[in-house]
């Protein structure tokens, strides 16, 4: 399968002459840094989904809002598509460039503009790294809760565009729950403030609409985030299981006991061994699965919750339960989890990270389904994921140098996502649709919903110039690829012609 823009299915892209566009942009914004030589463009040809690469026509590295405005106005006038890029850590090809488009890189917008500790907010530019916010506000005893595993590198603008989440989001929410307001520039170069420092704003909830919109409705130019007081204490329990389904059942049981952990993460044997090899976190390498359960809050409550969770884990059949003795051990337990992706990466030349979400009760069944698919396709799958959210991240191990193995990995990935949809879940929990899951969108949504998505896009970007071809498939694409999932012999989108 090829996920590169296919004009036949994704819409025509007007051809442009690089030199002419370059001249027009240089004229519109004389001090704007524009890259156009192949060797300068090369570093931007892909994001975290590196299997797919496209050289952009031009790369723009603005430093001021006026430059962004001039660039967007000119591109709008010339009908040149614009793909926005933050730190490029996206795993779904959301910032994959277009050959006929400009790549707008927001990384130079990297200033923290204001910290108001009393109001518990920070106003930051979109290129600020997620972790940098928490570091900057730490002296005030505050932090920014959403913590994607990529937080050391990813930008807050990219987090907004992907509605990013992390270990903490079970208790503290996703980006959508932690952003107060956005400054956005439309493709027409108009500036809007969406949301406010008050807790709501008049009109439609455009703030929610912008979250996870993958750079298709506007360019985020400023973000005001909500800060939280650092919990007084955080403790982590590690429970071992000799059966992965038992671990899956324990996840539901903890929450049923009325406990919302600060984080509830699960790793299977393959992931445990990889992490232990890499980090020496002290993981039980013979366990079939481990659960890491973090309880945070006020000392007295945390102690009580630990006792409750211990009891639940024992009844759920945990073979061993360890409480991290001190902060150093707690950090070590987490280091294994946080480094699980690179750790798995050391076991195999390539891996492919999936991102599906399911109702928690379906964890045991879906885990079993994944292991059956893994056998069927002959590729190993490591499971390490946000169990408390039902957000799975199966890592498919493969070797891209072996003829056809990438294609097998992709097919297996697609099957896993469809399994998630069948279980009542979603094809993406936090990594976004981008280009990668554009076909699976047709499995999750029908043509009415997809039409409504296009209507929203149209309201903000009439000519479809912002990040075209991402996130929302055309109905033509669904007609072609939706046909892969025939239920009861009914073709999806029967009203559309077949290619």
């Amino acid at each position, binding site marked *: 399968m090829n996920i590169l823009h296919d004009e036949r299915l994704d819409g025509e892209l007007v051809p442009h002459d690089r030199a002419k566009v370059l001249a027009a942009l240089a004229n519109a914004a004389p001090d704007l840094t524009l890259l156009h030589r192949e060797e300068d463009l090369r570093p931007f040809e892909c994001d975290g989904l590196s299997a797919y690469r496209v050289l952009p026509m031009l790369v723009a590295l603005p430093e001021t809002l006026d430059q962004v405005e001039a660039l967007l106005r000119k591109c709008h006038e010339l009908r040149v598509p614009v793909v926005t890029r933050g730190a490029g850590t996206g795993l779904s090809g959301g910032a994959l460039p277009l050959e006929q488009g400009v790549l707008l890189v927001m990384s130079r917008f990297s200033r923290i503009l204001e910290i108001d500790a009393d109001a518990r907010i920070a106003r930051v530019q979109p290129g600020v790294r997620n972790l940098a916010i928490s570091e900057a506000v730490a002296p005030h005893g505050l932090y920014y809760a959403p913590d994607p595993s990529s937080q050391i590198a990813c930008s807050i603008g990219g987090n907004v565009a992907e*509605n990013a989440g992390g270990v903490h989001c079970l208790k503290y929410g996703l980006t959508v729950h932690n952003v107060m307001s956005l400054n956005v520039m439309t493709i027409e170069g108009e500036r809007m403030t969406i949301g406010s420092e008050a807790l709501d704003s008049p009109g*439609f*909830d455009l703030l929610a609409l912008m979250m996870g919109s993958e750079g298709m409705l506007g360019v985020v130019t400023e973000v005001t985030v909500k800060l939280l*007081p650092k919990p007084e204490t955080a403790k982590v329990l590690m429970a071992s299981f000799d059966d992965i389904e038992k671990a899956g059942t324990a996840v539901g*049981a903890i929450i049923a006991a009325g406990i919302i952990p600060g984080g509830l993460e699960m790793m299977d044997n393959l992931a445990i061994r990889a992490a232990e090899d890499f980090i020496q976190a002290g993981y039980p390498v013979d366990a079939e699965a481990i659960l890491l359960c973090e309880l945070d809050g006020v000392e007295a*409550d945390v102690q009580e919750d630990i006792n409750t969770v211990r009891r639940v884990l024992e009844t759920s059949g945990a073979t061993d339960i360890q409480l991290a003795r001190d902060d150093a051990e707690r950090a070590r337990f987490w280091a294994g989890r946080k480094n699980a992706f690179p750790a798995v990466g050391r076991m195999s030349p390539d891996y492919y990270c999936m991102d599906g979400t399911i109702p928690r009760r379906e964890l045991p069944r879906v885990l079993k389904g994944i292991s059956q698919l893994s056998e069927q396709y002959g590729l190993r799958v490591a499971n390490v994921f946000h169990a408390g959210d039902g957000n799975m991240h199966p890592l498919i191990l493969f070797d891209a140098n072996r003829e056809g193995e990438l294609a097998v990995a992709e097919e297996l990935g697609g099957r896993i996502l469809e399994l998630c949809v069948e279980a009542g879940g979603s094809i993406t*929990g936090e990594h976004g649709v981008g280009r990668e*899951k554009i076909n699976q969108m047709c499995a999750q949504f029908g043509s009415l919903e997809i039409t*409504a998505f296009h209507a929203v896009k149209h309201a903000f970007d009439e000519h479809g110039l912002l990040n075209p071809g991402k996130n*929302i498939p055309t109905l033509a694409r669904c007609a072609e690829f939706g046909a892969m999932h025939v239920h009861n012999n009914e073709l999806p989108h029967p009203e559309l012609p077949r290619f």
Partner: protein
Amino acid sequence: MSATETSTTSGDDLVSLGERLKQAHREGGAVRIEGGGTRHFTGRQVEGEVLSTRRHRGITSYDPVELIVSVRAGTPLQELEATLAQHGQMLPFEPPRFGAESTVGGMVASGLSGPRRPWAGAVRDFVLGMRVLDHQGREQRFGGEVMKNVAGYDLSRLMVGAQGTLGLITEVSLKVLPVPSSSRSLRLEIDRERAMQQLASWGRQPLPLSAATWHDGALNLRLEGGPGSVAATADMIGGDDLDAGYWQQLRDWQLPLFRDDQFRSQPFTDHQQPLWRLALPANTPALALAELEGAESIDDWAGCQRWLRSDIEATTLRDACALAGGHATCFTPQAADPYTPLSPVLARYHRQLKQQLDPNGVFNPGRLYPDF
């Protein structure tokens, strides 16, 4: 029955709701969506045929272990809350209940949240997915019944607070939470300025605060969490015990300031002063407007939501709020412009969105703003 429960008093009225909308589409008419008829003082007057959701009711699935409930729009809020309470769970955003007829659809479409909002989040923060009927009466499904989902645009949250102007909500999936195991309410007689300073400094510590008003010369606080932390915080804060019924009255707009009976179906009478709600950034000082001297008010949400009875000129009040970074809504029935006007750019994109999702203006036209 398995983990998933279905309520007994249910009814599926989807087909007839769809038919009504198809008819409106054919005939170029508009509908005025009506849930319980309890929030008619919110928003602007709508000309249109009444379309009642009340027959489309019932909890379609509830799995306490998942912390997710799916419920049809016409279900009485009371019925939903009673079912959750049986399992020790709740709607954390504490929506106001304006009488037994309040419906879940009206709760979501009006987007109002109660005292716990600054600490727990608003209605929209707990919406996971939705089923809606579009302007041609066709069912669409957005979001889902899972905690995380970033596929497509978040149209379900967009519907929250849109006052039924973008679509007819038929079913909504909500995240619910366990009721905190311990709760305590306190009253401290301190002046407003000191109260706000205290709240700012407590806000920077991990304390189990879950409601805070300054009202009648006192700071009223609610602590919720584990018994240990609630007791320890209460000891630290001191003050007198406050009857927890206060929060229910605040939540349901039954305190004297709201003048309870006004929000029934009776018409608004002239001698009462308009009711204003100000939404302001944290730590905004009291608005320095001579017209507000002696006005009746409650500072809720640790000062971020202020209720006010005043005849003050709308533009004067709105300008002062805008200067502070907030906005003001008038909840007096028949208010000409209940909502703060949008900036020209925002208004343009609002119109374009409405035009795209409801091209013929079928849904509650004019309810939010005159032109959409």
